[in-house]
């Protein structure tokens, strides 16, 4: 093996980064779609989703080829196995963005039902988690990956708070129910994206340290 294989692994990493870059762009555009009644941002999110899906197929095949032809072991194996799991997470984040952007496009021309900046905050916090999970991958930064995993709780808390706010809105004003229902799904989508950023961070830790930190409660219950 040696240099040739190293270059192939480098290509794999660059491809994953290119895919992650497009997903990050999708997230940014998705946030902006809420204040874009014309729908150009949402349309762009859909276009990018197609590119992300193409990356999904390409990276899948690249990983299978490397596994079949290069017999990777140790950290090479961990990188490829984890890439196989990170790619669908990114692809799924893209799908969630499409979903959120579509609903934002519907809501953008209408009066808002949710006072405060809760939507902006859950969007920004989730985007930050995805960006830092990808940074942790790029820079091999285990501490950053752990920080991303810890941040999942704060997005969960934001979600819970917004969910209650939206229930209150619906109870107090039946005319807001349709818009608030869209937002209930939107905040769930953001919360899922944060979960997926967490999954990516967990894979990064596996690549870097060979430890599986998933489902910590199972580990605790065994002790």
């Amino acid at each position, binding site marked *: 093996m040696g240099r040739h294989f190293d270059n192939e692994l480098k290509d794999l990493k660059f491809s994953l980064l290119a895919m992650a870059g497009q997903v990050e762009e999708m997230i940014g555009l998705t946030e902006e779609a809420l204040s874009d009644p014309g729908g150009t941002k949402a349309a762009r999110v859909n276009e990018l989703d197609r590119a992300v899906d193409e990356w999904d197929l390409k990276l899948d095949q690249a990983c299978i080829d490397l596994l079949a032809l290069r017999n990777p*072991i140790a950290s090479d194996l961990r990188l490829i196995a984890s890439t196989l799991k990170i790619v669908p997470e990114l692809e799924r984040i893209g799908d969630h963005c499409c979903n959120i952007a579509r609903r934002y496009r519907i809501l953008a021309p209408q009066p808002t039902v949710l006072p405060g900046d809760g939507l902006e905050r859950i969007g920004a916090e989730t985007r930050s988690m995805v960006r830092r999970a990808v940074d942790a991958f790029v820079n091999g930064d285990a501490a950053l990956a752990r920080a991303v995993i810890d941040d999942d709780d704060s997005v969960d808390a934001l979600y819970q708070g917004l969910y209650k706010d939206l229930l209150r809105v619906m109870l107090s004003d039946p005319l807001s129910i349709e818009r608030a229902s869209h937002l209930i799904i939107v905040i769930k989508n953001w919360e899922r994206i944060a979960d997926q950023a967490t999954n990516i961070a967990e894979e990064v830790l596996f690549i870097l340290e060979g430890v599986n930190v998933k489902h910590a409660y199972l*580990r605790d219950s065994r002790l």
Partner: protein
Amino acid sequence: MDNTPPIPVAEPVNRPTTPLPPSPALEQDPGTFAPGELPLTDQAALKAPPMIEVEGINLFYGTKQALYDINLTVRRNTVMALIGPSGCGKSTLLRSINRMNDLIDGVRIEGRVTVAGEDIYAPGVDVISLRKRMGMVFQKSNPFPKSIYENVAYGLRIQGVKDRAIVDEAVERSLIGAGLWDEVKDRLHDSGLGLSGGQQQRLCIARALAVKPDVILMDEPCSALDPLATGRIEELIFELKRDYTIVIVTHNMQQAARVSDYTAFFWMGKLVEVGLTEKLFTNPRERMTEDYISGRFG
């Protein structure tokens, strides 16, 4: 016949140029793993009692030190793979386990090797009977220019076994054990040299099995075989470990990963890392191990 190249005794002592980690805190004690944490590891291999214990072995060929303070435990009914670049001492260690190094002039060995609890370097140990308990299989198959039957019967013959029924039984049992019986049962009295390379290697394994050894030592047993014959030997190793303890030297990382329960990585006469194969090949502790097994050494 041993295929190891002659050892250059005149060379200066060849010491590692980069500092090695201190003699590894042997991670061989499997400790406690969570259920499912090492799903491919043979769980019985974790609990097996020791069969071979190498304790603080230093070995010198003349002035050249070939092994530095090796500590290694091979558990009963498990397969231990010894890996490392050429000249790292893995074959030397293998030959220390059945005292084959005794045959080389100027060899000096310090430390202790016990097999089934018996110190094999203790004064008064009968080396011949010791070697009977250790079958050895070499890189190049080396059947005797005799019939298949006589090749397998050889060990019994030199032990003086004359009873035809006993020899017949041993030959059949050993050939079955080596997975060769069905292919040769109708031509037991043909020459062993007429067999294919893979069959000859299995014949040598059968010959080793005939004397009912405790341990089978294999020095690159598949390096001259095609993938099919290699696959058969690897399957056989898997079968044999039910009854024997196996130590195998291999340059084929995938083979070490496939057949062994434990793997030990050697470099310049030192044991760098030893551990459960599943762990060593997915998450080795030492950078040097990682570089070697992933083909980036040096």
